[in-house]
């Protein structure tokens, strides 16, 4: 039973891979991926219930393990993958570029491999396996980023592969050092990278070696989580990837990589105290926030704008992890959920936007609220959620984050983070207002206005449900409240 539950989130997308490999991408199979995503969500819910009632469970000799943090991340993967996969058929049909059956089939295959790799990464009980899964996400998404086949898309794919491979290689060096420290503390070869065992024997590890390992691990996994200094791939990759893939990368991949940092932090903090990871995460987080806020000011492309907003939120999450108190960790987990959902909706909406406007340039899209009210309303609501307006959950999590920061006597860092967030807020609000409410195109171009109510009910429903979930989480977090608190203890 346990092993089936733990294997479902990995096996379901792999089955969908077989479907696409065997039958190709056609009307009947287009939603096989959505079915796999729903199965991941169902397994996530079941695991969350079991884990909160009976504690962590593992299988395959501890290689796969579900604790509250893993169950929480799995819920996120399932929900956001459902939104992204449900939007994929209409995206592939309308986006135009490379919509041949061969490229659609490859798209389906790679997206499902991507989902399987992310499920493996969060369920891995062994840091080595988690590393392999995260590196695998780079390999499968490289071609998804370059899916359009244009010069810009290929350039983005190249940058993405090189920077993420280098980043993740640095994380591997960190793992090797951690393994070395664990072996010298008397752990066996099989246990030395096993997270629960490492945490239990943390006091026997050599502090100087662990400090070095932690520096490499934070930099390396930080690269994959979109944190400075190895962040340069993020705006390009998110800007060029197909919109549903951008939704997955921004809403799930970044937090999955970050959850590894949370897990490592637990071990490292027991060995060398909280100060080391706190300072490092503060520097990385504030640098990321500052870069994102400054580059948002003069942004000219709406997908890149959403990408920089992801960097801004990841920076904020890193600052929250630096605070590290249970309140702060609960807040960042809620923030991860809220940001992931809202950003997935925003990116998916940007895909529909591209399908009707045929451009991703900000200055070419104006007066959307008049021409396509349904899409404009969804996009606006997603941006409002990302800006942190109530009732959306990002309001609650940002407030809790600030409270936790002042309580932990990190007032200056929190004040700096808030100023930078405000700057990003102003830019994002200004650009979006221009898109939605601007005067409209000087000469009404025939193509965009030809089909104003193009957003079908089937494409609309997942987006509205996603936004409703963010709002519901903001009003009351009760369905995941216990899970959040348990996960925060695991990550603390």
């Amino acid at each position, binding site marked *: 039973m346990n092993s089936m539950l733990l294997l479902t989130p990995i096996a379901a997308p792999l089955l969908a891979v077989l479907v696409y490999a065997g039958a190709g991408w056609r009307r009947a199979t287009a939603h096989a991926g959505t079915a796999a995503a729903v199965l991941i969500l169902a397994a996530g819910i079941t695991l969350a219930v079991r884990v909160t009632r009976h504690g962590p469970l593992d299988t395959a000799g501890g290689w796969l393990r579900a604790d509250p943090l893993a169950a929480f991340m799995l819920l996120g993967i399932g929900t956001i993958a459902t939104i992204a996969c449900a939007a994929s058929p209409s995206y592939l049909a309308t986006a135009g570029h490379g919509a041949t059956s061969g490229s659609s089939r490859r798209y389906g295959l790679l997206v499902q491999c991507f989902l399987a790799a992310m499920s493996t990464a969060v369920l891995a009980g062994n840091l080595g396996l988690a590393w392999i899964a995260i*590196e695998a996400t780079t390999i499968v998404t490289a071609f998804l980023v370059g899916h359009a086949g244009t010069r810009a898309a290929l350039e983005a794919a190249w940058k993405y592969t090189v920077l993420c491979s280098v980043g993740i290689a640095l994380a591997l060096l960190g793992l090797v050092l951690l393994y070395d420290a664990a072996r010298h503390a008397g752990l066996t070869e099989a246990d030395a990278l096993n997270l629960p065992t490492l945490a239990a024997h943390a006091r026997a590890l050599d502090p100087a070696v662990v400090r070095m390992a932690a520096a490499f691990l934070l930099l390396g996994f930080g690269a994959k989580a979109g944190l400075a200094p190895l962040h340069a791939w993020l705006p390009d990759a998110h800007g060029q990837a197909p919109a549903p893939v951008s939704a997955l990368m921004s809403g799930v991949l970044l937090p999955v990589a970050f959850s590894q940092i949370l897990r490592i932090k637990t071990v490292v903090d027991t060995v060398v105290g909280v100060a080391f990871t706190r300072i490092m995460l503060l520097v990385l987080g504030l640098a990321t926030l500052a870069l994102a806020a400054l580059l948002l000011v003069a942004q000219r492309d709406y997908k890149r704008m959403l990408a920089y907003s992801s960097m801004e939120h990841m920076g904020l999450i890193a600052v929250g992890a630096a605070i590290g108190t249970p309140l702060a960790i609960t807040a960042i987990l809620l923030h991860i959920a809220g940001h992931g959902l809202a950003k997935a909706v925003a990116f998916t909406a940007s895909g529909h936007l591209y399908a009707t406007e045929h451009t991703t340039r900000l200055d070419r899209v104006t007066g959307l609220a008049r021409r396509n009210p349904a899409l404009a309303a969804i996009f606006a609501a997603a941006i409002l959620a990302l800006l942190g307006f109530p009732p959306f959950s990002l309001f609650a999590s940002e407030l809790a984050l600030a409270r936790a920061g002042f309580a932990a006597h990190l007032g200056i860092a929190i004040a700096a983070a808030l100023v930078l967030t405000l700057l990003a807020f102003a830019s994002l609000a200004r650009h979006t207002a221009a898109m939605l409410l601007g005067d409209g195109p000087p000469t009404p171009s025939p193509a965009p206005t030809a089909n104003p109510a193009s957003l079908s009910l089937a494409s609309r429903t997942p987006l509205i449900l996603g936004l409703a979930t963010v709002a519901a989480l903001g009003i009351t977090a009760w369905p995941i409240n216990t899970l959040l608190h348990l996960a925060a203890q695991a990550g603390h």
Partner: protein
Amino acid sequence: MSTDADLLDLAAGLFLLAAVAILWRRDVVAQTKWLIVQGAALTGIAVVLGADERHPELYAVAAGIGLLRAVVLPALVRRAIEARSEDRETAPLINIGASLLAAAALVLLAYAVTQPLVRLEATAAARALPVGFAVVLIGLLVLVTRRKALSQIVGFLLLDNGITAVAFLAAAGVPILVELGVSFDLLLAVLVLRVLTARLRAAFGSVDLDEMRELHD
């Protein structure tokens, strides 16, 4: 045991020398030859450690490492060059002399930062550990200062060879299952990069990264 220690030092020395030689040669074909030498040196390190620590399974790992790092990966880079000859020059951002000086500084830095690791145990393997670190740093230097797509792949391979050397010298390698996964991922990453270079070449006409100016803010 002292001959084993000498052999280990020899292999580690050759390993570092190959990294410096890659920095020194401008021609990517010559660089791939040194990659082969480095792969062989890495295999040597694994074999000596296998004999020294009586880990028979290390021989199997060494064979796999040798096949991957000294044969398959350099051959992949080599094939990419044959397709187009004007990409052979590496076009460094800083001149060769300065690169070599920087490499010397990086080796010193590697010895300085790895002190805690060397202190952990007093074996010949641990004493050779800074060499692995130095190669990691030289790999990063190549990645930062060389502008051709192919040289970046070479830099990435240097970085990865360095990490594998650290893994062997520090703890006789990570668990075999993890080592297998890591090698497989590395192979796939290089294959992905190779396919991307081919496509970039079709789209841009060359794979000089300075030509890639489509995306900026």
